[in-house]
């Protein structure tokens, strides 16, 4: 918690966070948390996969653990930015940015899901073990969700900075 406060203080000092709206600060934090925890999860899942022990129970445990970690980090971060710079209600610009970024994020997610479906079909035909395993398919779908969320959050930041 103190470490996060320190990070917020550094960002506050270096980027003049008072020029960012609450939603923009929230987007930055969510993006960074998602990238870090997504990377940690992927690394853990990959190591289990290489040791051939990434079974459904292990995947379930990893998912629960990293999801709880993500929720705790996001709640702590949002409490911190409210304490440091106050909260702000969403306005029409925030809603427009959210809608446009969400629309593109949805397209990215659909592309990812159809890519996974394509790989399942091709894997099924070619006998690729990754895409014949439920755990492999689940991880591929999780990756598609992660990429779509990162794309959506990154686009929101672009719209906030560049304009919409």
């Amino acid at each position, binding site marked *: 918690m103190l470490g996060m406060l320190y990070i917020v203080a550094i960002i506050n000092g270096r980027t003049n966070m008072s020029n960012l709206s609450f939603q923009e600060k929230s987007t930055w934090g969510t993006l960074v948390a998602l990238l870090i925890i997504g990377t940690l999860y992927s690394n853990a899942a990959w190591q289990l996969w290489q040791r051939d022990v990434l079974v459904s129970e292990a995947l379930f445990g990893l998912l629960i653990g990293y999801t709880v970690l993500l929720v705790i980090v996001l709640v702590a971060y949002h409490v911190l930015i409210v304490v440091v710079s106050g909260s*702000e*209600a969403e306005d029409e610009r*925030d809603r427009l940015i959210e809608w446009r970024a969400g629309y593109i994020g949805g397209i990215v997610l659909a592309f990812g899901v159809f890519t996974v479906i394509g790989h399942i079909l091709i894997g099924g035909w070619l006998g690729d073990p990754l895409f014949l395993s439920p755990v492999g398919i689940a991880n591929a779908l999780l990756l598609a969700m992660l990429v779509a969320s990162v794309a959506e959050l990154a686009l929101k930041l672009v719209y906030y900075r560049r*304009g919409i």
Partner: protein
Amino acid sequence: MPVNISNRVRDLRYEHGQMTQQALAEAVGVSRQTIIAIESGKYSPSLEVALKIARAFDRSVESIFELH
């Protein structure tokens, strides 16, 4: 995304006793960052917000916003 609508919001704030962006934002019901985005041409407000800005300055919308 650049828009083809210019506005005189910044000038009018100064003409109205150096009204701050925060004061205008509160009068209009948006965030200060949205006022900054409107002034710099990075965001075109909805008709509702444009009318509220016009009311805050006691002007018509056309005298504040101009379509190019």
